[in-house]
Each structure stands twice: as structure tokens, then as C-alpha cells.
């Protein structure tokens, strides 16, 4: 145990006087995705676009959702800008963000998800499992330490199109459970 009082004369080099205040980030889940409008936020990481597109296609085909808007982030390393956040949230009942597959973009994808939840839109954030720690730390920084994000095995960037589609199919049950109260019947068949 540290006797903190004994070291009061040592200055704190971090500037953190306290942890960020934690506040709820959870939006209300949808009962089902039937007729739900899905927003897709592509962070520009290699294969993010095709993975999100396939997820949107499967949610439309198997659960009656509609892809309402697809946007690409301007800067991969930073959280989504306010105008894009509002634009996507305005026309989406649920949002999917991905793919957190690098040092800074995994963290910023989690920040995006928290921002959408605070706008009242349930969000599924997909990160490569190699970046779980940094994504978790980002949730803490943004005051939502218990924010749940989805992971997919690393790497994502080098997958071929069939493999990307297979990943999307594997992710469907988790995305569904993350944004709605619906339960997946099974992992959907992929085109391959």
C-alpha cells in the first residue's frame, strides 16, 4: 500500500486531479430491427467500408432493416465531427461504426459509439480484438467505462472480399443483440 500522504510534496505530472465523471451513455434498445433505419459510419480503415456494407445488407435481408445513411469519417484518428454526428443520428434508429483496427482509430470508434448513444441512438462499434485495451481505455476517458463494443479477430485489413463477408455474417448476432432486443435465429449464410 502506498502511503500517499507521505509523498504530498511530489507533484502530479499528469494533470489529472480526478477521474472523468461517469455518466450513462446507453440509448434505449429497439424491440426489433424491422423497418429500423441503419446508419453506417466508416472510419476509412482498410475493409471497413465492405464490412459495414455487408452488415447492412444482411440486416436488411434477414431482419427487415433499411440502410438509411452511409458516411465516412474525415479523420480516422479523431471522433466523428458534430455535424456528421447530428446528420447520421437524425435519420438513423441504430448506428454501426467500424472498424477499429489501429492505435488511434480503435479508440476514436469507441468515442463515436458513446456519442451516438448519448444522442439516443443505439450503436454497435466494431473493433479488432488486438485493440481491446485501448478501446476500453477510451470508453473510460469519455465517461462510459462500461460501454460495450464488439470485437472481431485481428487482422481485418488483409481479408479478401469473401472473408470480409464471412466476418460480417459472424458479427450479425452480436450487432443485433447490441442495438436491439431481438435475438438472432442463426448465423446467416454467406454469399460464398
Amino acid at each position, binding site marked *: 500500500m502506498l502511503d500517499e500522504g507521505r509523498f504530498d510534496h511530489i507533484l502530479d505530472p499528469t494533470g489529472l486531479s480526478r477521474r472523468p465523471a461517469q455518466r450513462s451513455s446507453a440509448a434505449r434498445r429497439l424491440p426489433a430491427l424491422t423497418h429500423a433505419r441503419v446508419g453506417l459510419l466508416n472510419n476509412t480503415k482498410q475493409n471497413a467500408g465492405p464490412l459495414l456494407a455487408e452488415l447492412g445488407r444482411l440486416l436488411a435481408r434477414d431482419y427487415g432493416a433499411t440502410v438509411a445513411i452511409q458516411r465516412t469519417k474525415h479523420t480516422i*484518428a479523431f471522433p466523428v465531427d458534430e455535424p456528421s454526428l447530428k446528420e447520421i443520428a437524425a435519420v438513423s434508429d441504430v448506428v454501426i461504426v467500424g472498424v477499429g483496427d489501429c492505435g488511434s482509430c480503435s479508440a476514436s470508434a469507441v468515442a463515436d459509439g458513446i456519442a451516438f448513444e448519448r444522442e439516443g441512438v443505439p450503436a454497435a462499434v466494431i473493433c479488432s480484438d488486438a485493440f481491446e485495451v*485501448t478501446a476500453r481505455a477510451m470508453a473510460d476517458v469519455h465517461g462510459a467505462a462500461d460501454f460495450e463494443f464488439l470485437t472481431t479477430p485481428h487482422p481485418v485489413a488483409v481479408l479478401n472480399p469473401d472473408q470480409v463477408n464471412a466476418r460480417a455474417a459472424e458479427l450479425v448476432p452480436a450487432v443485433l443483440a447490441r442495438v436491439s432486443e431481438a435475438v438472432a435465429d442463426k448465423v446467416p449464410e454467406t454469399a460464398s
Partner: protein
Amino acid sequence: MTGHTATDTTLSQSEIEYIYEKGWTDGLPVVPPTRERTDELLATTNRPADEIIGRLDHLKREVTVELAAINSVMAGCRPEYFPVVLACWDALMLERATVGGGWQSTSGPAPLIVVNGPIRERLGFNSTGGVFGPGFRANATVARAIGLIVRNALGIVPHVFEQATQGIPGRWAMCIGENEEESPWEPLSVDGGVPAGADAVSTTLLRTSEYVDNRHTADPEKLLADFADTISRTGSWIFRNAAAGIVFCPEHAQLLAGAGMTKDDVRSWLVTRCGRPTADLVRVGKALTDKGARGDHGEDERAAEGFEPLFAEDSPKHLPIMVAGARNAGISMVVRLFGIWSGISARVDPTPDGL
């Protein structure tokens, strides 16, 4: 006896252990940052302690002059080094990567810090033999201070927000004085907009550095061709273009200058020639797409034609050139830039007492 009591020794040891337990060190022991020690550094600048000199909004972190001073104390800086740390930090904040996601990058970059002007002599910055260190307090502690600021004040801690796959050798240890006395050319800081003879710091993030040992030819074009070969390797080339710098040893610089080449001549020679046949890049899975990205899309190297230049521009931002090291051998360093250099050097402010 030095006057230290057993109690003092026990306290300083426990202070060091306390700082380890708080997670505030880079792995080596630090100097405990007390109010008194920190104030000695703050006294070397007119800038207010609460001035914000850096921020990462997405991580909700800020760097103030005071936090920079606390971390500089920890790094082992003497008070008079602090204006150099501040100038270095200012220059670093002009780099696109440092205010973006660069510190969090899997590439694990770190700044190369170059000091110019009389302050090198005054504060004891090494600019000659063994310039990449270690062994010199000013070089070692200024570079380390920057690393501690990034770790502690910006919160970029390894395995958490610092996601380096391997990181670069020499991280937080690359601070060199330019060997202006044996350089045939203008200092790097002149390329950065500061007049020769003024105290200045230039910096950019590196991904690594690699030597060119050529004690074999007196022909300037053959010598430069050796540099072009190292600069043009495919492994470090990931986007449409790449950037690199050269820390010439005095011998190489003098050979080139002796053949009548200015720094601009050297740069132009290299910018024209550095690059690879397209087929070489296709062969390693780095074919250029029409969107400007590189990747493997099953292209046939036999059908690939043309030559792809490595550098996007003939400019010190893309190919900074400086001179450092001893004049005892023809061994120079190619440094790999994370992005491109801002092209702006920061002046070192004089201390309030005019030193």
C-alpha cells in the same frame, strides 16, 4: 561524507519507488518533482505556468507549461534546459501527426530533436562523436522530458493509448546538436525559418533510422547513389510517396560540398533519383491504386511499367538535411520520417535574466 543522512537516502529511494508505483516513469528512475525543483525551471521562462501548450481533445488531456516543467524535472533536466524543452514542444505541436493520432500509432514513432545555435555550447549539447547518444545530459534529458510529457500529461501510456507494435529504437532519446562548426552548409534551422546563429530547435517524428557506411568512394554521385539505395527500399514505403531525412556526418557533407554541391543540390539529386520501378513495388504487394493507396490486388509485375518517385516534393519538409557526428569516418544516418517535417523551427526564448 556528502552531508546526506541515512534518512535522506531512504526518503529519496522511497520517493522513486512511489513514482514507479504511480506509473509515472518511462521505466528508468526519475528525479522526484518537488515544488522547489519545478519552480526553478519555471523561473527560466516568462511564460505563465498555466499556459496551455498542447492538447489532445479526444483524450481530454492538456499540457501546461507547469506540467512540462514537472516532467522535465523528472527527466533530469537542469533548469536552464527548460527553454529548450519548451521550444522543442512548440516545434513538435506544428507537426501534423502530433496533434492527430500519431502518438497512438502502431508505428510507435518518436521525435528527432535537432538543436542549433550557441546554446549547444552553453548547455553542453553534444553535436559530434556519438551524437545519437547516450552520454550527454542535455541531449538525453531534453529528449526524455518530451517522452515523459507525452506519457504523463497527454496520457499516452504503453499498451493503453500507446499502441506501438514494436516502437522505434532510440525512442525518447534522439536529441542531437547540429555540428555547425564542421558543416559546410547552413544549419537546419535556416531551412526552418530561423536565422543562422540563433538558438533554435527543429523536430519531426521518426519511424526509424539506418546508417549508410561509405568510406569507399570520393565520387559525390557514387556516394549519393549509396544514399538513394537505402532511401528507396520498399519496406518503409507505405503510401503513394514517402519522406526521409539525412543526418550527414561531416566527412560526407564536406565531400559533397567540396564537389561544389549545396544542400539544395544534394536534395535535388536525391529527389530526382530516389524511387523504384513500379514492378518492384508490385512484387512486394504495394501496387499503387488510382485512389493513391498501395495494396495487393493481384497485379502482374510483368505488366508493370514505369518508375515511381519516392519523394512527393523537392523540399526540406520532405527531405531535411543536417550534419552531425564526428569527422572520423564516412558514416551517416538516413532517418525515416513518420509524415513530413513541418518545415518550421522554433526559437529558444532567452531566460528572463537574459542568459
